[in-house]
């Protein structure tokens, strides 16, 4: 039989490799927050008849209109994505006509978003609250779902550790994506993150459920063997339910679903994969670590994190 739990420290190390670089990028450069959180203006225009003007020219035009903090990103097909600070209605309405006049062709507006600074603040605080409430809801739910078995608290804590792991991987990927591919953390990203958190728990419940069932059947078996047996039993199911169904759909969305949903689909894709991965390679191993109280040996040098 596959011995997954025996290699548990290898998997812990692997997760750290996934999480740490992103966290470093985040700590050094910050998260690429979209105007949903910061407030501001986002204009995405396409020039059909002429070549898109140089970013410097656009910035200059914006400055003449009295708009600050302008940042221009070019994209294929003569598309410009222009971000700047929030302005009043009249100034905003004048941007397109000013562009038409300056560059000699009317740009096609693909997207034009304007978010007031107070809204941005409110979205941010509510986002924080939503994540907190989601985490709390999950804790309560797990406590409820495992109320009848010994060490229900352990299961809850391990599920939450794994959930945090999934969230951190998603954050890490987004921070890296933000700095290399120009991704933005917007409310859709948050939606993806909250969904990942929700689905993450779903998987842990299925795996824990099997451990619970087996511990009633094999009373004498060593806990590590029992947990490993349970994981292997559910492995097929985990792979099939998550990877082969939801992931197929998301992969199709990421590849063919158009620009607007690409980041969303990729984050869900990675996040849901992590949800499945962490229930097998993080949550269950942590249960074993807890059962054996292995932290007592962590600092004695006999077993290292890279074992």
């Amino acid at each position, binding site marked *: 039989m596959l011995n997954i739990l025996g290699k548990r420290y290898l998997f812990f190390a692997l997760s750290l490799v996934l999480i740490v670089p992103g966290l470093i990028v985040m700590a050094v450069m910050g998260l690429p927050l979209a105007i949903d959180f910061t407030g501001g203006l986002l204009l*995405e225009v*396409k020039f059909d008849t002429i070549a898109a003007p140089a970013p410097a020219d656009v910035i200059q035009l914006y400055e003449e209109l009295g708009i600050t903090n302008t940042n221009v990103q070019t994209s294929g097909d003569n598309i410009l994505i222009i971000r700047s600070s929030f302005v009043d*209605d009249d100034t*905003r309405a004048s941007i397109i006509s000013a562009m038409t006049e300056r560059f000699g062709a009317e740009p*096609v507006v*693909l*997207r*034009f*978003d*304007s*978010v*007031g600074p*107070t*809204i941005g603040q*409110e979205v941010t605080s*509510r*986002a924080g609250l*939503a994540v907190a409430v*989601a985490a709390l*809801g*999950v804790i309560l*739910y797990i406590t409820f*779902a495992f109320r009848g078995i010994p060490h229900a608290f352990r299961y809850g804590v391990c599920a939450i550790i794994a959930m945090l792991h999934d969230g951190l991987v998603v954050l890490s990927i987004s921070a890296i994506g933000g700095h290399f591919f120009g991704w933005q953390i917007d*409310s*859709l990203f*948050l*939606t993806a993150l*909250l*969904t990942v958190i*929700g*689905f993450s*728990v*779903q998987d842990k*419940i*299925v795996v824990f*459920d099997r451990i619970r069932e087996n511990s009633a059947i094999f009373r004498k078996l060593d806990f590590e063997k029992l947990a490993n047996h349970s994981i292997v039993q559910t492995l*097929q*199911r985990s792979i*099939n*339910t*998550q990877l*082969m*169904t*939801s*992931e*197929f*759909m*998301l*992969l*199709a*969305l990421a*590849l*063919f*679903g*158009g620009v*607007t*949903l690409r980041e*969303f*689909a990729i984050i*869900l894709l990675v996040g849901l994969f992590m949800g499945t991965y962490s229930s097998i390679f993080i949550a269950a191993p942590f249960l074993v670590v807890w059962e054996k109280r292995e932290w007592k040996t962590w600092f004695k040098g006999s077993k290292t994190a890279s074992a």
Partner: protein
Amino acid sequence: MSRRLVNIVLIVILLGVAIWVDIPKEQPLKIGDFSRPGNLQLGLDLQGGLQVLLEADVAADAVVDAGQLETARQILENRANGLGVSEVVFQVAGDRRIMGEFPGLKNPEEVVATLKETGQLEFVDLGDEYLPDGTVLKTEQNTSAAPADPQASAEPTLTTEETIVKTVEAGRTAVAQGTLVVPDAEATPQPADATATPEKVYKTVMTGDKIKSISVTTDALGKYVVDFELKDDGTAIFADYTSKNVGKFLAIVLDKKIVSAPRVESAITEGRGQISGGQNGFSYEEANNLAITLRYGSLPIPLKVVETRVVGPTLGQDSLNKSILAGLIGFLLVILFMTIYYRLPGAIAILAIISYAVITLAVYKLIPVTLTLPGIAGFLLSTGGALDANILIFERLKEELRAGRTLKQAMDISWKRAWPSIRDSNIATLITSAILFWFGSAFGASMVKGFALTLALGVAISLFSAIVITRTYLGLAVDGLKITKTARWYGA
């Protein structure tokens, strides 16, 4: 057996109704008073358009009355319909905001500018002083027209009081607190009138709520004007004022800005009047916009634009096409996988999923759910979830078959054993959806709400699909094909 028969009848009826609802129609769906659009409603991100978030323009800590917000929403909707903007939707979002959605609008900025005008019309006594059109002045009326709760209009009230104090000082008149104190230009002529204009508080003779009906016509010169007819009490006030003030100026003021300031030529006793566009005259649009603003009354609270989102029609169409393609490709992959891997049950699960999709779309239409891009993602994700439930059951089925049970025993046991994990995991998803919906609803983030709603609906319907539909279909297939002995058909 009879229970299965009940299920079959139930499923057939349900699918029949769902397919009937799903078919796109020119006419709206109608059952008695219940009416729904004939086609699935697409969000702005799919068809292009403008989304605007309006916020009560009052002090940040002031409480906005829910009734006033609802009245404002109603007025905005009436105005939009009056302007001929089709399919516009206004929704109260949270406790101080209103979200408006304008699909496929050509001139969104202008329309929003007209809609958000507070629309308070005042007839203001200027005395002997003429002020040009467009002058912004202070009147004794609050910005808030209705007998507003003082909290809601905290800001405007403050300004007025402040001004009163200043004027009082200038006029050296002792005033009791709370009385209306407006220096009447006639009674206390002030030499510094011209320079003091911005600080002066003018007397409001009458407000727009005394108007009975309003229409756009042309005057003798062929210019567009707005005709109005007053209610009885308005007629009396107007007659009284105009007979006493012949030769004086009466300004027609909209939201504190002078539209025109005609001289009172003679007493007007019949309760009719005309608003002309001042020196430049009105264009038809200007006259019509004014008429619409007046006809539906003034907003009980001033509003400001705090967020706008415009999606161009090309991007919307592109997104729609691509997401449909993506959905089809994803679905094809799933069909391949399910039939290869789970064989007969897999094929049956696909039938169940198609039934699931048909029912879900019908539910979207009946609620109705406005489909956005994230909404489509939510739908696809919940389709995956619906399959998950099937797979959980089939994996159990294989295990039980390998353990040597008969097919019938295995089927019964697998359904029973798989149910707790299906239930638990779906409840977890429902909790997440609820939190997402709450997160999205307070500031009109329709993208987030759309995702949460389609996900939650999908989960609920998928439970039904896995437990009732798949089970019935599989039972039918097993009996019909008489393949009870070949475990290979079940991928075991």
